[in-house]
């Protein structure tokens, strides 16, 4: 199976803790995206990486959020000092070109 994988599938943390969410994109895909879906809401764009270009961070909601993509492959989304409003499903997607994105199953984050 060569789909997009994300880990962990579920994460429960206490308010104020830092969390790291991982995404393994499909091999060879040059673009990688992070979105989040809060309860009852649509997909909110967070950040995307395209090849070696500077990432588009325009969707990150605050400076507590950051992401990196090492070696053009695996990406980690880090949320520092988590707040209850950060609770959501965080989705990662990769794409070989403009258009179709292939999504992972998501990480459900619950901040108590």
């Amino acid at each position, binding site marked *: 199976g060569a789909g997009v994988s994300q880990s962990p599938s579920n994460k429960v943390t206490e308010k104020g803790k830092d969390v790291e969410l991982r995404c393994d994109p499909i091999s060879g895909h040059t673009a990688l995206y992070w979105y989040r879906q809060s309860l009852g809401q*649509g997909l909110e764009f967070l950040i995307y990486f395209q090849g070696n270009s500077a990432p588009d961070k325009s969707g990150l909601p605050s400076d507590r959020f950051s992401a990196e993509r090492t070696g053009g492959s695996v990406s980690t989304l880090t949320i520092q000092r988590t707040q209850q409003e950060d609770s959501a499903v965080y989705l990662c997607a990769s*794409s070989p070109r*403009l258009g179709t994105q292939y999504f992972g199953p998501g990480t459900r984050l619950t901040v108590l």
Partner: protein
Amino acid sequence: DQQVKQNSPSLSVQEGRISILNCDYTNSMFDYFLWYKKYPAEGPTFLISISSIKDKNEDGRFTVFLNKSAKHLSLHIVPSQPGDSAVYFCAASAITGGFKTIFGAGTRLFVKA
């Protein structure tokens, strides 16, 4: 500022009938539009797309129509099946925006047997 809007949060349709899901956009620079389908506890999966140079694209039971002057697109599913029950997201992107894609809030489709 919602650039992609799906104004109907839910839609209920009888099996065998047509489902029509609507989407409006505000950014005239969008030139590629996509529909994704999402089941609970899964990531969205690509369904069908259309380029702005076309006004219709058909794939089996699924057809997407684009009306650029109205900045409106719609997804038609006919005949609808119970397995089509899911959340449908409309998405749009612009070549000038690189790979960035904007998603709508989604419409939950219920197909009743």
